[in-house]
């Protein structure tokens, strides 16, 4: 019988963050258990900042961050948390002389996986992103879409309990995008996944939950179906599809509340 993890893997309480005097996150409260959560929002909405906080790369100025049942402020817990995190940053840098295999292996080791488990895990991760034939290819010779898939492979190599993907589908061709959505659905069975994206179809097809952010606030949370329904019910919001209209409406109402 499959065991479904229903624990709160993400629990944010009153999280705030600013860069200098510019406040980029305002009083964020959010919880999540297993499943895929799509983060939608315009540029500068705070999606990347939120994901960086969830990835423990950035410490929030205020609020509490509990990840995988542990306090991210605690030094020892932090290391435990990081062993179970997979993260694909928006700006994905890489070492150009590394092969695909070596790059994924390198990060598997940095994630402190058991050295004996690294090799099979790397092989599996590369297969899951469809790069097995490029495993011995140097990173510097890969196309942008392939580099992105390597980024996804390194993020999932440790079978993370918390997977954070910042615009993972940028540069992927339609076929790869479909494969990627399948991968997300697989991960959703046992992981808490956050996907930041501008593409509403990614959210519609692969996410269980959707969070819309605007101006550093969460302006909408629900399921993709609920967002689509909201889009169907509105006529004056911009967008070609129901979900796009729902997204636009959510942003507009958020701005109205903020002002």
């Amino acid at each position, binding site marked *: 019988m499959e065991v479904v993890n229903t624990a709160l893997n993400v629990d944010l309480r009153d999280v705030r963050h600013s860069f200098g005097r510019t406040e980029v996150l305002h009083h964020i409260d959010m919880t999540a258990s297993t499943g895929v959560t799509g983060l939608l929002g315009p540029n500068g909405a705070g999606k990347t900042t939120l994901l960086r906080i969830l*990835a423990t790369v950035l410490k929030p100025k205020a609020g509490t961050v509990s990840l995988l049942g542990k306090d991210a402020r605690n030094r020892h817990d932090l290391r435990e948390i*990081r*062993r179970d995190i997979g*993260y694909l940053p928006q*700006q994905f840098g*890489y070492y150009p002389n590394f092969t695909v295999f*070596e790059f994924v292996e390198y*990060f598997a080791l*940095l994630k402190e996986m*058991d050295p004996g488990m690294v090799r099979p895990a790397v092989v599996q991760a590369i297969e899951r992103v469809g790069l097995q034939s490029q495993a011995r290819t140097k990173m510097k010779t890969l196309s942008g879409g392939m580099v992105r898939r390597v980024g996804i492979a390194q993020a999932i190599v440790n079978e993370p309990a918390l997977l954070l993907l910042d615009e993972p589908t940028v540069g992927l061709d339609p076929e790869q995008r479909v494969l990627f959505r399948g991968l997300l659905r697989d991960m959703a069975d046992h992981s808490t996944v956050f996907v930041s994206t501008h593409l509403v179809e990614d959210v519609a097809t692969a996410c269980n939950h959707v969070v819309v952010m605007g101006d550093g606030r969460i302006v909408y949370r629900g399921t993709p179906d609920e967002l689509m329904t909201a889009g169907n019910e509105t006529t004056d919001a911009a967008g070609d599809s129901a979900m796009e209209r729902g997204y636009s409406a959510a942003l507009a109402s958020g701005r109205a509340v903020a002002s």
Partner: protein
Amino acid sequence: MNATSISFSRVSSGMIPSDLVRFGQLLLITLRRFGLWIPVAIVAIVGIAWTHYGIGTTSTSVVLWSDISIYIAISSAIVGTGCGVLMSFYAASRGRRNIDDLLDSAAMPGWKSDTLTFALAACVGVTVYSLVAGWNLLAASRVVSWGAPYWVILIAGLATTVAYSMLGTAIGMIWPHRLAPFLTLITVTLIFVATAAQPGWHGNTTVRDLSLWNVLLDQQDVYSPWYATRWTTNLLDCIWLAIAISAVSATVPLAWRHRERSLLIAAGVGLLTLLIPFAIVAGGLRPKTNQWTNMEHSILADIELVCSVGTANVEVCLHPAWESELDRATIMANDFITPVQGLTGVPTLIVQSPVRRGPGSGEAVDGMEARIHLDRYSHLEFAIPDAILSSIYPEGQSWTDAHNFLAQWLAERSGTYGPMHYSMGEVGPETPLSMTDIGEQHDSYDARIQSLVDRFNTLTPQQQRAWLEAHWDQLRDGSIDLDQLP
């Protein structure tokens, strides 16, 4: 079930072997994909070429382990700088890869993954220096017949190379800019300039004593095959400075980047390691050792000289390190002595001396033995006549025309160098002062001496010998008027 699993995970993650295996695997990947091995090879080739040139131009046919060891060590000025520049380029470009977020989200602490870069820097430094050292030691082992390499000198060169490599890494890590290699070049050059100027030989230690270049100053009188001395405190200072630079280079950037308390403490200890002894040295608080204090106490007692007797029954004994020159030296000495064999003051034994003397001031031990001093600069064509004439001519007497005439005539006969070779500019690095002090009118003087020699050569060997026997005492004390030549 969950609690048990978490507990096990914590214990196993803290196991050192697992951490070491992981670090080793990461280092292997980093080494395999360093990407700058061709420039590294070029730096090594430049180092080999420079060392080869240095040894080749300053040695005679005899090659000593001290020469090999010193030139290998000093090559660190070139290969160390090269490694530093390469590593700063690597560290700076790595810092511009936009990969910090990814690294910061990993479980392995950031300072540990940064340590990989320093481990790589050490590997690069060791590799380049080992290539230079290995090549030269291998080549030398085929021609050097006596003794063993000076390992402490070689280690000093290694430590310096690694230190420069680490320093370059630190600069590239702190300032990941395209100009970081230039900053490294400037920094290494400043260190070099601050320590490379020739230090004084006496008194207390100074900052300048921290340089490997001091080994060059010490080489003839300390790192000689005659002495047991294998290192001086100056050399140990140099190694200490290199280790301190490496420690500071590694800890300061890590502490600066990761703000870890333990790293800050380590960096502070590293800085103190560097600064306190540096202050002691810079403040001149410790008497220095030098070649003059070293050599008297450390002459090796168990050296068995190699000897050979020539046609004029003159025996030549050399240090075994010069064995390859023994036959030539014997022939040369016997040829030189043949016309004056048996006359007063003419030596029958020529023994190599460990003590470096002022040219021409050597004493005959019992009137039959001459001392010859050979070092890395000595040519037999100069040293043999100098030793024999120093024995023939009474000690402390200034040279006259008579001395120059005899020296030139004997030299021409035996194919060695006489006073006219010096006046014509054919002087070696160790030109005997007594032979160069012949006035300003070189040309006319040379012509006069040469005409005397030519005139003397018109005589038969029997006539020459008879004349020499008749005027030998006056020739020796320089009182003869050369117009009396037959």
